[in-house]
């Protein structure tokens, strides 16, 4: 594929995983305590998608990376101060909530609108990247819905690797049960890849790349359209954080097999 890809990476933002996350009822529905004030990061799985996209774009001359993000734009701007240093891309922001308590279909619709609005985007070169799930909502549905809206039917989820074959087809490794990968080959774009962690480390910050990205990011943020996203018709039966359970026993000189057996027993309980 000599003219390169148009890689659209969909990535929201989530509270920094080290923060204390406490679900609370707000006047507009469920949310997290102090959500606006907590530092945010790019959704981790989607962030891997971004690094993979940048890597692929670098290897494939003529490619372009777009980062489509639905988030409160002031917060998105703050997150961009780091993310913009990781890879060259054009930001397509949509101003709206980044909460995990929104409905996947509504989010996908807003992303669809934004993607359709990208000038010069060529469907025949389109690789739609994102996370196979999100750190704020693990449903893994947004990207699939969005793919359907864009009528892209080659969809892969839990992707760890994507290589371009000499004939232009794509070989894709998807995570399946038992720590295995399923290997698929598809003929090329358009395709949806919901990334797991991929293989690439997080690139170090490069302020030079950041500054050059910022030249387009700031105007894009200023012009960002607002999307009304909620969870119409959705009822949250209950909301709670995953429980942490800690049972510690100090034993000296335990054998590895013995430890493994005990852990298995504990998990099965």
């Amino acid at each position, binding site marked *: 594929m000599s003219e390169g890809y148009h890689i659209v990476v969909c990535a929201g933002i989530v509270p920094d995983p080290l923060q204390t996350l406490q679900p609370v009822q707000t006047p507009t529905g469920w949310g997290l305590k102090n959500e*606006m*004030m907590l530092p945010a990061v790019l959704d981790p799985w989607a962030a891997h998608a971004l690094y993979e996209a940048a890597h692929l774009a670098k290897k494939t001359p003529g490619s372009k990376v777009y980062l489509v993000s639905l988030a409160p734009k002031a*917060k998105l701007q703050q997150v961009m101060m*780091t993310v913009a240093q990781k890879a060259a891309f054009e930001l397509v922001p949509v101003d709206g909530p980044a909460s995990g308590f929104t409905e996947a279909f509504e989010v996908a619709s807003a992303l669809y609108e934004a993607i359709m609005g990208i000038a010069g985007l060529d469907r025949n070169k389109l690789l739609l990247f994102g996370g196979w799930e999100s750190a704020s909502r693990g449903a893994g549905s947004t990207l699939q819905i969005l793919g359907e809206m864009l009528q892209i039917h080659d969809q892969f989820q839990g992707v760890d690797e994507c290589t371009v074959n000499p004939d232009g087809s794509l070989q894709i490794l998807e995570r399946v049960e038992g720590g295995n990968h399923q290997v698929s080959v598809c003929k090329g774009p358009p395709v949806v890849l919901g990334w797991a962690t991929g293989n690439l480390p997080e690139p*170090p910050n*490069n302020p030079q790349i950041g500054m050059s990205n*910022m030249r387009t990011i700031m105007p894009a943020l200023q012009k960002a359209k607002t999307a009304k996203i909620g969870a119409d018709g959705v009822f949250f039966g209950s909301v709670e954080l995953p429980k942490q359970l800690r049972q510690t026993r100090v034993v000296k000189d335990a054998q590895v097999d013995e430890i493994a057996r005990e852990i298995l027993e504990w998990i099965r309980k």
Partner: protein
Amino acid sequence: MPEKMIDDVTLQTLPGDAIRQIMWRFSDRFDIQMLVQSTRAVARGPVARLVAEGARSTHDWTDQKAALFKHFDEAGITGAFLDPECGGMIEGPKNLLFALIAFELAWVDAGAATASLAGNLAFAPIHERGTPEQRLHYMQRMVPPAPGENRKPLRGAFGLTEPIPYVGVDTGALGGKVRIAEWPDGGEPILHVEKRGRFITNMDLANFVTAAVDSDDPRIKGSCMVILEETDPGIFDRGAPTRKLVHQLSSTRDPIFSLKVPASRIIGGYKIKDGVIIPNYSHGDIIEAVFRRTRITVGAMTAAKLLSAVEPVIRYQRGRFRGTPTVQPGSSRYELGLQLKEDTLHRLVDIWASGEAAASLVFAAARLFDEIDPLEREKDRILEQQGVSGAWAQMKVFRNLRPKAMEYVELCAQKPEHRDTSRFKELEQDPLVRYMVLDAVGNVLCPASKLWNTGHGANMMREALSLMGGYGITEDCPGFLAFKWMDAQLEATYEGPEAVQRRQLSITMTMDIFLAQFRNWIKEMRQIASRRPGTGACTLATAMEMWLWTLEHLQNATDANGNKLYHSPRQGVTFALADALCWLLASRYQIRDVLELEEKGRNNPMVAEGLDGTLAFLTDLCHVQSARASGEVGRICAELVHGYNRHPSWDGESCHPYTPTELDALESVAPGIAGGVAGHADIMSTEGDPHPCKAGPCVRFEGLETFTRMRLKLDGCLTGARLAKDRAAQALTKVMIPEALDYPQ
């Protein structure tokens, strides 16, 4: 604690980037925000890992430590000082940027901050006073390699300090010498430089050294700084490593140089007159220009450490009793742990308040120098155009400009609607006037931020680790608090120990252009106090008045022996007043930053959500800090005002306790004194005794009434300060902190 004091509106989370960007005024500087983020990633990533792995256990320079430079280069830290035309990223003055870089690195390890900024210090003499050719030549060679590029950039060291007895910063005498080795006919002289350095940072890596030397040859006039390169002919011996106990992630050695270099290496160039080389700048001129900027970054380091201590201390306190079978989840002992004890909270409030004040002070200083930098260049250009050269000629120009500068300061204090706008504009647009006015403050803020942040900061760091108990003094302590405490002592020492800062302050703080602005600041604090009494601005204004009064008093008064009080050998007076001033300045800038947040915070949705609570808390911290500052100032002033008068004895005519008439007179100052004292047998003479038991006779001197009135007022101004502390303490029990520290331990 009474229920009504526990305000619902309180701090929700630890202040995040958006809040700091507003307070420290870089919310519209994306370039700076990016460098802050990239620096933070290096600090809390590779730097923190190195510290956690124990790399600080040796003063030797190791491969591990050297590897940090790759990260510094990639993150844009080592290249931050470069101008865009030389491959740099940031346009314009960079003082705030450096302060923020130092802050981010020192949040984890100040040695890393020192290492990464040492190149900047080495280059600073060339940047500030070098010829355009020197500046360009070295800047281009110092550009860090782009990612993937395999090129070694030039690294530098700053060589001033020498082995005893010469040493460095504060000495006119230098052991390092320069002679003329050869002077070919019509050609460029070749110099022979002999210099021994002591405690020179970056010496393991430096490819060049900017060294201070004195002439040892009648054909060279005075002192200068020269650039030495490792490839110059002669000895470039990096010397023995300094067996230091602190800042272990930086390299420090005692180098020895004996090198031949062309005269074009004299920083700032030279002239030849009657066969004598006259350097354009003495080493003193250059280091003054350098240190007034680089000292600010040092102050930023200690400020960062104080603020970095808050989160680990809170986490330690809250988790202190968890895990005991008798302490059940949900119980207050489980949830709050040591935070149930008032003292632990109050002490942490003090640490946090000091950290806020230190950060506000140092970033204000940095921003001020960002304003001064271009003005200074403009001033140099104008003076050169006018043919003014040399320190004396410059001083004359400024002496003539003094009335204009004073007028400008006066107009600044007037409300815009009341002042002569055209005159104000005219003066404001006069670069020399503006330079003079800002420079007067810069000359105070730079030493003040270095002195107070590092000195008081070191004391408060000790408090911080004591709140962690035994854990605090171990290598395992989260946040590396013990290292940070030790390191603070170096920050208080290098680039001029505290005495040097105090000496500078004791001169610059008496300059009339500074004092005129200081008077305006008192008015400003009074105005703030009327709008926002909770800030403690009122207390501060009173303390500022007292400081000013005391300074003026001591400048005229003599001690009991008739000796002058305020003059440079009398450091017991001048240094103490310099210390007092620092407390006031730190508090003032702290209050101003909180007001900035109040004004701008609402426009930022990330800040607006919890703004009222954040403001309430930060305002309480201002109050706590201003009360502490006032206490210090009151104590210092009282000691100085009274302390140099001889204690009265009973042998003189005038030595007697207050008579009833005198007490009545003092009643206007201290209501109730007459009645109170009169009822006190200890003090009033009783019939038949030669003089009263125990208590001595009372003090009298010119100005006593005024001073006493101020003291009383100051005490009264403390009203509410402890309530503010209680509220802040309560906030510490409620504030949400992350689950874990975002760097290893």
